[in-house]
């Protein structure tokens, strides 16, 4: 930089600022922080793209995508101008936008180093200028640009008259600032969480948020079109209109309607919210930078006594390997972020699909099998879920019997959740579609499917093990093993369908041949068939596991 003569002990920020001579004795004129931070942010952005053409391509395609989508959304929103529901749409959109900004940093830590207070701790910076500088850098990026597009479109949709135009000009920066400060305040308040192991675990759950969110959004939009459109949302909108930063958009709408008193109240709320968020951000930033960091906190914090649970639920488990493996499997479903993410996604989507379909009138008791299938996939790649810790299991398996008991315990742990869940989901679906006569048959088909998934899952675990990387929410297969993973799961699903085909065929026949009154027979048949399939699968998989322990270990240790 341009101050090579600055002594090593000079302030870091001053050393970076060009044209400022930071003598040790006279640090009288501190440089303006905001341009320094903006330059750092731009440099980081530029350097991040340097060298990697893949990253460059990803960045620019995201930028192009955001611009195109932003442009069309702005256009679309502006075209809403004059529509009776325009106010409802834009106010709700602002609410969703704010919600997104608030939660994104928790699930997608963007790795913006200018934002990381722990990197600034050693620099002599005052809170107020720092917050200003950080706020300015927060406004640089694709996210804020996209938000700006939406804000402009939103106010254009509801602004009417000269007063409306003025209100719109005020509302755009208010909405943008509201979103950005909300994100920063939430992220800074939780920075200790975000930089800890728990925070990294949380980030791994983002896959779950997307999967479940997509399902919910899908059904929400469907039901919206069925339930008379936007009018159905007006009660929600009436509340959101008073929640900052959506109040900024609400204000423009109020001005357009001539309700100046309401508009003034909404303006005051918007400004107060931004001020309050800035204040709380500054507070947590100051606290962060002058109190001990996460490492010391963690060491002195109280340790949760995990031994307590031993007496309760776990004491019902069988002894020996069966109980130990079941316990570990279930504990991992709760404690391991990747496993938890997979389980919760399966449990949530397994409920969403049949229940929402039933609510929309397209439901069927047989959709209860959906969750059974989703959860059954968890039986696949059992040893990959262990990661390289599988060596501990491998060290204790010395016979086909050991391998069988190990697989059986894992299947049992899964069944302990899947069986009651499947019955419950089927019952709820039956109640919603009011088709209790088909309930036993629906349960029978679902349970037969669970059994065949356990069967093929055990076989796939033995024959097609692959590594699951522990980092990255969307990396579930180690490089080079994608074909193996997808091949194993696809072949397994097909096989499961084949294995449970007799039960499905029986159900179809009973329904076609007007024997619905005896369709309850599918329940015992399905249970027996599922149990038999699972047993046979475990039996067939066990010798392979016992024989191929070193090969399985090396296949699952690549992550």
């Amino acid at each position, binding site marked *: 930089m341009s101050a090579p003569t600055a002594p090593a002990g000079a302030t870091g920020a001053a050393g970076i600022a060009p044209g400022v001579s930071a003598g040790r004795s006279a640090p009288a004129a501190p440089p303006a922080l905001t341009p320094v931070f903006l330059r750092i942010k731009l440099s980081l952005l530029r350097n991040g793209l340097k060298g990697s053409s893949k990253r460059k391509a990803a960045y620019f395609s995201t930028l192009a995508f955001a611009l195109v989508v932003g442009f069309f959304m702005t256009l679309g929103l502006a075209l809403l101008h004059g529509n009776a529901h325009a106010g409802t749409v834009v106010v709700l959109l602002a609410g969703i936008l704010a919600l997104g900004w608030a939660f994104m940093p928790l699930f997608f830590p963007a790795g913006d180093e200018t934002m990381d207070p722990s990197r600034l701790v050693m620099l002599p910076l005052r809170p107020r200028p720092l917050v200003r500088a950080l706020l300015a850098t927060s406004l640089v990026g694709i996210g804020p640009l996209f938000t700006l597009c939406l804000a402009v479109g939103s106010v254009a949709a509801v602004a009417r008259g000269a007063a409306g135009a003025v209100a719109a000009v005020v509302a755009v920066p208010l909405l943008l600032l509201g979103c950005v400060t909300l994100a920063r305040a939430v992220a800074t308040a939780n920075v200790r969480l975000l930089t800890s192991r728990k925070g990294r675990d949380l980030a791994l759950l983002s896959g779950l948020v997307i999967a479940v969110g997509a399902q919910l959004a899908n059904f929400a939009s469907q039901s919206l079109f069925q339930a008379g459109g936007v009018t159905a949302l007006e009660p929600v909108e009436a509340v959101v209109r008073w929640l900052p930063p959506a109040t900024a958009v609400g204000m423009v709408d109020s001005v357009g309607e001539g309700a100046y008193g309401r508009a003034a109240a909404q303006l005051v709320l918007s400004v107060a919210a931004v001020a309050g968020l800035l204040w709380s951000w500054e507070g947590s930033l100051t606290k962060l930078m002058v109190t001990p960091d996460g490492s010391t906190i963690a060491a002195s914090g109280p340790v949760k006594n995990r031994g307590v649970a031993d007496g309760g639920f776990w004491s019902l488990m069988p002894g*020996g390997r069966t109980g130990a493996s079941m316990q*570990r499997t279930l504990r991992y479903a709760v404690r391991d972020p990747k496993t938890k993410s997979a389980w919760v996604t399966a449990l949530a989507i397994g409920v969403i699909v049949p229940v929402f379909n039933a609510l929309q009138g397209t439901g069927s008791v047989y959709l209860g099998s959906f969750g059974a299938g989703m959860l059954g996939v968890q039986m696949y790649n059992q040893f990959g879920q262990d990661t390289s*810790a599988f060596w*501990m299991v*491998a060290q204790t398996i*010395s016979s086909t019997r050991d391998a069988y008991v190990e697989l059986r315990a894992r299947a049992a742990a899964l069944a302990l959740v899947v069986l009651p869940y499947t019955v419950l989901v089927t019952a709820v679906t039956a109640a919603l579609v009011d088709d209790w006569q088909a309930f036993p048959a629906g349960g029978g088909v679902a349970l037969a499917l669970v059994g065949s998934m356990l069967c093929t899952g055990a076989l796939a675990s033995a024959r097609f093990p692959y590594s699951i990387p522990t980092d990255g929410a969307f990396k579930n297969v180690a490089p080079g093993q994608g074909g193996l993973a997808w091949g194993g799961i696809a072949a397994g699903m097909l096989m499961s369908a084949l294995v449970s085909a007799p039960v499905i065929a029986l159900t179809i026949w009973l329904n076609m041949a007007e024997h619905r009154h005896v369709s309850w027979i599918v329940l015992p048949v399905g249970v027996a068939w599922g149990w038999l399939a699972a047993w046979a699968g475990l039996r067939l998989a066990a010798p392979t596991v016992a024989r191929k322990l070193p090969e399985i270990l090396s296949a699952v240790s690549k992550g």
Partner: protein
Amino acid sequence: MPDQGDATGGTHGTDGARTAPSAVRVEGLWKRFGEQVAVAGIDLELPAGKFIGLVGPNGAGKTTTLSMVTGLLRPDMGRVVVAGHDVWADPTEVKARIGVLPEGLRLFERLSGRELLGYMGRLRGLAGDETDKRATQLLEILDLAGSQHKLVVDYSTGMRKKIGLAAALLHNPEVLFLDEPFEGVDPVSAQTIRGVLERYTSSGATVVFSSHVMELVESLCDWVAVMAAGRIRAAGPLADVRGSAPSLQAAFLELVGAHGRDAAGDSLDWLGGTSGTVAR
């Protein structure tokens, strides 16, 4: 197969090795990873009841050898007999008799230290009460009692090595294999581990551990095997391997052919001191 030359000669020529029954016998062990030969035909006999060090530079094949000896990696060729039983033909007998602490493989990190021991004990077929009793004592002696309810994922390196050691000792094995048990471990934990291992060998059990810290091996072991480039360069009681060299370190450098590199001419003569020319 290449000739082992005089490498293993020391083993058979010593009194200790002749009288004691062998804990581990390795015959013609080979392992290739693609083009690279990791272990190039090892013959080795490790006496029972000793503290045995397997030393060698990084990449010598120590981890690969230990993985094959403990049944975690299938050799391309060769035979391994541990405590009188073939590792690959008779895994039931072998796995009950050995304890392992590998390097570079994870533990079940989402369990607490105590849960991990409880889990391993039950997988090993120990009764629940017995497992819990042993776990309590091991946690106590390894100085982990205070963090027994913390998840292993939050443990430090030293604590991980200690909980791994506890898991390896839980079923009271005859032979214990430890891959780099002191790597990245602080002095206090290292001393704790050392104490436990010394107590364990004094009861007649065998410890085989790999390391590249010669001082440690010299102070702990009474028997060493030196590995380099996938082969055994020397093996036998510590005194025999050290020979006339002033220290094991010196003997080791000689064996792996790294001697003389420290006096490599004048390539760094500008570094340090004040005699060198100063720029500007």
